[in-house]
């Protein structure tokens, strides 16, 4: 058994144990009203806490088994590498494109109309309703393509814009009552 697989299983075991204990001792008691068994007007029912308790116990036991097995050096399944740099970039790209999606429409409306017409009234009016989605969507496609290729190109931005626009039209033209992101949340 190689060291990284052992380390991985130890981490899974520890995380699983910690999470299961937290769920069992804090989350379930604090956030469920009826207990494992619920006594209700002289009748005894299965309470809402029964299923999550069993699930958390299952996680506890399996995490303990995985951790123990790793400590005893019995082989588990292999670990594949996780790159923190990649994860950080992905989070940044997701945050950036969602922010663009959420705020482009309101920002453009404010610039164009001032404060008299809120974006909320324009969520069914082209081109405003497309602005956030197309810009944010293009950013998502272009940035992820650039990330996995380690190379930025304007061609990908163009592909992103076209793809986002096509997706927007695919949903918006045939259907009257669908919202594109983020138009249902404003």
């Amino acid at each position, binding site marked *: 058994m190689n060291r990284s697989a052992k380390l991985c299983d130890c981490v899974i075991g520890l995380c699983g144990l910690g999470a299961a204990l937290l769920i069992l001792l804090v989350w379930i008691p604090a956030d469920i009203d009826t207990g494992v068994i619920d006594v209700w007007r002289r009748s005894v029912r299965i309470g809402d806490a029964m299923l999550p308790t069993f699930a958390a116990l299952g996680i506890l036991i399996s995490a303990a088994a995985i951790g123990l097995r790793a400590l005893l050096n019995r082989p588990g*399944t292999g670990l594949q590498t996780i790159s923190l740099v*990649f994860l950080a970039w992905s989070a940044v790209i997701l945050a950036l494109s969602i922010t663009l999606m959420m705020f482009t429409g309101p920002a453009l409306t404010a610039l164009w109309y001032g404060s008299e017409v809120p974006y909320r009234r324009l969520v069914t009016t082209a081109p405003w309703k497309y602005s956030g989605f197309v810009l944010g969507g293009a950013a998502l*496609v272009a940035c992820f393509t650039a990330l996995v290729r380690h190379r930025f190109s304007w061609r990908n931005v163009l592909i992103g814009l076209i793809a986002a626009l096509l997706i927007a039209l695919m949903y918006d033209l045939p259907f009257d009552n669908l919202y594109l992101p983020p138009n249902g949340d404003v």
Partner: protein
Amino acid sequence: MGVLDYILAGIMEALTGNPALVLGPIVLSWPVLLVALGFLTGVLIGATPGLSGPFAMALALPILISIFGFTPDALLPVLGFLVGIMKGATVGGAVPAILFNTPGTPDAFMTTLDGYPMAKKGQGGKALRVAHFASVSGDTFSDIVLFVCAPFLAISIEAFLGLPEKAALMILSLSFVAVVVGNDTWKGIMAACFGLLAASIATGTDSYPRLSMGSDVLAAGLPTIAVVIGVLVVGEIFTSFEDMWTSAREKRPEPAAADPGDSTLTMAKRRRLLPFIGTSMTIGTVIGALPGIGTTLAAALGYTAGRKMHKGATRFGEGAPEGIAATEAANSAVSGANLIPALSLGIPGNVAAVFIILAADTIGGFNPGPSVFRSTADEVNPELVVAFALFTLMVAANLMNWITGAWFMRLLGGLIRIPKQVLLPIVLLLTITSVYVQSAKMSDVYVLLFFGAAGYLMRRTGVPILPFVIAYILTDPLETTIRAAFEASGSDPWFLFGGVIAPAFLACAAAIVLGAGWLRGTPAPVPAPAPASEKETTID
């Protein structure tokens, strides 16, 4: 209504129930149209290196529901499309395996062993024909088994199993899935328990939605489609992103597309393939009927059995058509049989069945499970009509497959060359959008991305995905059945251990979990991850 009347009603419902186009006496119904579209989409997606059938189903489901809404009329077109994709992707998957040596799914790996050598010898077209012939035969056989077995299984379940037995059967299936999927029992159990836990958020019977942390977003319950697609699709996309990012190679060196060349397949040659196809499709059907063990094992077993039977000049692995036939018949026979537990018990066995149950649950009017096959004398059971209509659509898809599949596979051979580095980001955007339009809430997108991250971590740490998804889908029926069994027994604490059947099921479940842990003591070593540039995007 008698059984024959139901079958007739189902056929009529599928073929003429919801007309899209009427030309004199010829009626083209929406369900049939959608099956055809789904089939073509499925072949296209299956033939695209980097995508697979479940991907297509995941993307199509929210889109279809947006199109057809939640009316009863939506049910058959949506299910038809999904069935079409399932069948199309199964045959389509052989195209890149044979012509480019890039398996689109793990089970198609076995197809490359003999398919690509044949293609290099200028027999690519013939290899495609063999793959198609074997795949359609396996699929058709498995569907027939489904049509016969599902109703009988359901009726006997309904007649002999009460509430405690049904609950025990669900526990048994879930344990089985947790243990057999992947190659680590404890990680499988952990995944299943994680699924149960996630599904218990904001469900339950108390007026306070449990585990919702006072949040109105959580109080509405996690959006099931976003959770399932997050773990299955978004998790896979991020795993592929990272592989590509790590390999950092601009493009994988394009494998030279082999010229299809000679593509005739005579009746005599077909007849010589039949023993291999017959063996493999039986293996595939048996494997498929058990929840959780998927196409990969079926393909491997089919190929091994074929190799033992084979006595020809060309050995397996050097371009023997029998090798392709043995593989493709086995993995295609899984798809129909997999719907046996799904339709008769409501227990999904693989990703395709998950999406079919999800579609039925979301649209309503059809609840896969024993009650579907109840036929009463005077009252019409609409679900039974839907079930037979669904069978009709599967037959329609098979007919299309027999007639046009081979031609379509060849047509697509050289067509699809969009690099994954561009395709997958677009698929990600499409996924986010189709989840959003369903509910018009950004919170659903956040749920999608959260479970995408969970799916990514599970893949990277060897925790299998399928037990999570199946547990998530099964939680509600399981909990409801257990509660009802307990309350109907007058709150007897031993309610699960009455009679013979329920304790027997539970003992089997315990034996599987404990036995596998003991047997597996040394889990099979995982093959070292292939260099990223050669890996393909797959689900499950």
